[in-house]
């Protein structure tokens, strides 16, 4: 570019071809001009792509706000400070862990060779000049989301210490390995690899698997090791309650605020995963992704709400509309569309959303049956939703859209394989392998990890603290101090009296002057 700027195309051409014929000269001018254009376009594209990733990263970061508010609203008032601080720490500790090791393990030193590696090995501490910083920023926001998923499930009964340990470990090591497998060009499941598993690789556009399912499985392991909150499934003497105690959240507005913030953030999470907005194709893919994300979320909410309303109506005879089910259905829809968002048609997004709503309800009921206590229902949302998302990508991915988004359409969604008359199981098989891999890896690492923490007494708080609430025991007092109305009104009585006197005086004065 710089050369072209300093020297006109004409000058550079005539310099080269002083004695050339006209045709050559014209060709050269044309080439030079095309080159200059390409350089200019390249310059703009690079800027644009950085901008796009910063935009998307900022929106994904906004999901931290969403998780924080959702968790805070869904638990009891006495632990609200605690869970808010965790969510803040996810961004902070998680961010640093991802800086130190996470990014390096996930993407460090990847190359274009078809080798399968287990883990990356370069760019610890962002060292080295070969890191695309806006890409790092975008990936950092993803990594933080993983550990936030777990925060809700284990809220109200986990020690700060335990939380910090596992959160750093998860973001710094466990998640990067899975992200490497799915998304690094050296990952065995990555379709960007030249020779991925079964020559297909898994389709996970924005992370139903590596992000959400992984978070969900970790949450499940944690919930199993931790045990339920006091008074949830057992009475004070440890006897199993016939009907489990519901522990409702303390503030619906916060929960809904969180839900909206998450949905908003998802418009960075999913469309941002094109990593580029500087080509027509990238733009088209991002546009489709935005539409699918919207539709799946909407369908998930509607299906979860009406289904729960219907079943409840059969039992209680009154139509009630449950807010928590609705918003969790919505989130499950979002989680589920995350993997297939770039490769399915819009009608399929609606179907995926509807099924996600049902999957969530089933998962939630199942957990209660199994007496696994999830304070904010994050396991059904992220684990079940993530699993369904990976499967759905194996079922509904269309050849045209795969071609557009991934540049390959050899193995397509099972329903479309049927349409081709082949019934080839490759893609759906790879997706299942992906699910098994995430499940196996996370369980194998995290269960012993939590178990050890528990053995060393760093996981669960003592019952007395649990009763009193973490805010008072560990965070210098309650999260809310809203004095009683009456007291304020009392204090203001004297004020009002003085006001009336002032007004009366003024009126008299006015009357006097008239």
């Amino acid at each position, binding site marked *: 570019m710089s050369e072209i700027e300093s020297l006109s195309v004409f000058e550079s051409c005539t310099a080269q071809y002083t004695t050339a014929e006209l045709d050559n000269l014209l060709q050269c001018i044309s080439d030079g001009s095309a080159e200059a254009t390409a350089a200019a376009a390249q310059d703009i594209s690079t800027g644009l792509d950085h901008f796009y990733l910063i935009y998307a990263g900022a929106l994904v970061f906004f999901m931290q706000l969403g998780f924080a508010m959702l968790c805070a609203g869904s638990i009891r008032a006495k632990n609200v400070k605690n869970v808010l601080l965790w969510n803040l720490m996810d961004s902070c500790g998680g961010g640093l862990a991802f800086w130190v090791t996470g990014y390096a393990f996930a993407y460090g030193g990847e190359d274009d060779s078809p080798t399968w590696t287990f883990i990356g090995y370069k760019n610890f501490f962002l060292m080295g000049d070969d890191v695309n910083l806006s890409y790092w920023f975008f990936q950092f926001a993803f990594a933080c989301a993983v550990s936030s998923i777990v925060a809700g499930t284990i809220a109200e009964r986990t020690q700060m210490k335990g939380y910090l340990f596992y959160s750093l470990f998860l973001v710094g090591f466990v998640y990067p390995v899975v992200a490497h497998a799915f998304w690094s060009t050296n990952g065995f499941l990555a379709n960007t690899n030249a020779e991925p598993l079964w020559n297909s690789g898994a389709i996970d556009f924005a992370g139903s698997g590596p992000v959400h399912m992984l978070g969900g499985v970790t949450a499940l392991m944690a919930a199993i090791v931790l045990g339920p909150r006091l008074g949830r499934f057992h009475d004070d003497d440890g006897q199993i309650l016939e009907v489990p105690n519901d522990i409702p959240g303390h503030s619906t507005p916060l929960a809904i605020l969180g839900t909206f913030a998450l949905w908003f953030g998802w418009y960075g999470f999913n469309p941002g995963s094109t990593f*580029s907005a500087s080509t027509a194709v990238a733009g088209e893919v991002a*546009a489709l992704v935005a539409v699918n994300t919207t539709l799946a979320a909407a369908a998930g909410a509607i299906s979860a709400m009406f289904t729960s309303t219907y079943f409840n109506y059969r039992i209680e005879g009154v139509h009630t509309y449950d807010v928590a089910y609705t918003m969790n259905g919505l989130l499950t829809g979002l989680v589920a569309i995350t993997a297939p968002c770039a490769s399915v048609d819009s009608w399929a997004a609606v179907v995926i959303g509807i099924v996600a709503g049902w999957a969530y309800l089933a998962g939630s009921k199942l957990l209660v049956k199994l007496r696994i206590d999830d304070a904010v229902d994050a396991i059904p949302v992220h684990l079940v939703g993530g699993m369904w998302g990976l499967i759905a990508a194996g079922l509904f991915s269309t050849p045209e859209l795969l071609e557009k988004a991934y540049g390959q359409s050899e193995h397509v969604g099972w329903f479309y394989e049927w349409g081709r008359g082949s019934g080839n199981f490759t893609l759906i098989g790879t997706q299942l392998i992906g699910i098994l891999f995430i499940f196996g890896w996370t369980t194998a690492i995290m269960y012993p990890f939590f178990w050890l923490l528990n053995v060393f007494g760093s996981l669960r708080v003592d019952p*007395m603290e649990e009763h*009193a609430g973490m805010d*008072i025991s560990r965070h210098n007092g309650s999260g809310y101090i809203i004095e009683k109305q009456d007291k304020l009104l009392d204090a203001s009585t004297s004020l009002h009296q003085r006001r009336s006197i002032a007004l009366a005086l003024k009126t008299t004065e006015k009357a006097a002057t008239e």
Partner: protein
Amino acid sequence: MSDTVDFSDADAFTAYCVANPLDASGAVCVIEGLDTFFLLFAGALVFMMQAGFAMLCAGSVRQKNVKNIMLKNLLDACGGALGFYTLGYGFSYGASNNAFIGTSDFAITDASSGPDYIGFFFQFAFAATAATIVAGTVAERCKMTAYLCYSFFLTAFVYPVVVHSIWSSDGFLTAFTDEPFRGVGMIDFAGSGVVHMTGGATALVAAIVLGPRRGRFYDEDGNVLETPVTFPAHSVALQILGTFILWFGWYGFNPGSALAIANPDSAATAALCAVTTTLAAACGCVTAMFFDSVMDSRVTGEVSYDLSMAMNGALGGLVAITAGCSVVKPWAACVIGIVGGLVYYFFSKLLIKLKIDDAVDAIPVHFANGMWGVIAVGLFADKDLQGIAGYSQAHQGWFNDFGDLNLLLVQFCGICWICGWVFAVMTPFFMLLNFAGIFRVDPLEEEVGLDISHHRGTAYDLEPAKQTDVEELMEVRASRHGKVEVP
């Protein structure tokens, strides 16, 4: 390129390669990608307004109906998405042979490229906004079923017809055709009329049919109260949160309506929109609040500053500038905002006089100021800016050309059309709902609050930990460490 051009014909070759310098390199691709990104950004911001409406409404109602109103806002977004997807988008922008309604592209089946998809996404966010405006007005007394019926109906049919007539190139009031109505067509850049007035008019009809909340204008026995009872908002923090989110979202709503950014005209338009939006909001807020303070202090003798005046004034200013944000100068935006603040103030008082109960004052904000916004274009539109924004320059605002009433007239026609259409369709619709007994909740449920009666309990449970538990903990700690005193 070298394949298709015959090099032996020097003239033809140079003509080709010079005339198409960008095709070869993919710069055209940059344009499309950039425009898509712009709409993605703007659409996401407009979507965020859903959160704003939810917070604003939730803060403005009484504590006992919080869950209900939030769920309604959430379902607006969801039901709206599905309604607009299945039918609405086709009715709005589908190809058609008539000026009234589109007839193809349902469930975006015609979409094949990025611009189609991102167009749908952006327009969906608008449709959802139109639907959610009503939620606040009918809060605390409207049944869930009725609400769902109406929000689907609005996004799937009523709103799309308005969109088709004003924004699609086939519409009879549209500005985007070769021969627009009276040479200019209706100028409603981002939807003061199309979005806000439609939503506001629906809210008005709903409020009239539904009647006021119990205890607002009438006592237990149905006698008119001398002074209407004001139900104070239960959480100002949520209200202001909502206001700020809405204002933030408006930076997608207005600048985003340029629909493209990769050319100088669109870029200039979007930049202007950001500025006028800011100024109108600021002026609306300041005007409404201080005007109220002055009026109030003449009665009570003490100066007080009303929060709901301030924030509704700001929203009024935002709604008012929405139609004209791309065609008025910054100073005119200030005037529009100032008048918008006053319009809000007086219309709000008028509604109370008429005993129409609007739980969050959405009617004065969206209906009255939407109307003012559409009129304001007819007064302040600037010829040069119209050109940049892609409108016909045949006629401009009345204040800029005192002899030319054409644009103002067109704007009035637009208002009449929107009001007429919405009233004609929604009045029977709501009356039918009412007649069928699925519109208003029963009085006992209203008294108790919708959260307990329909949503399994209250929205808040701020119960702190048991005092005995806390004391026990502190005692144990004190004995363990010997340093802490029992508080």
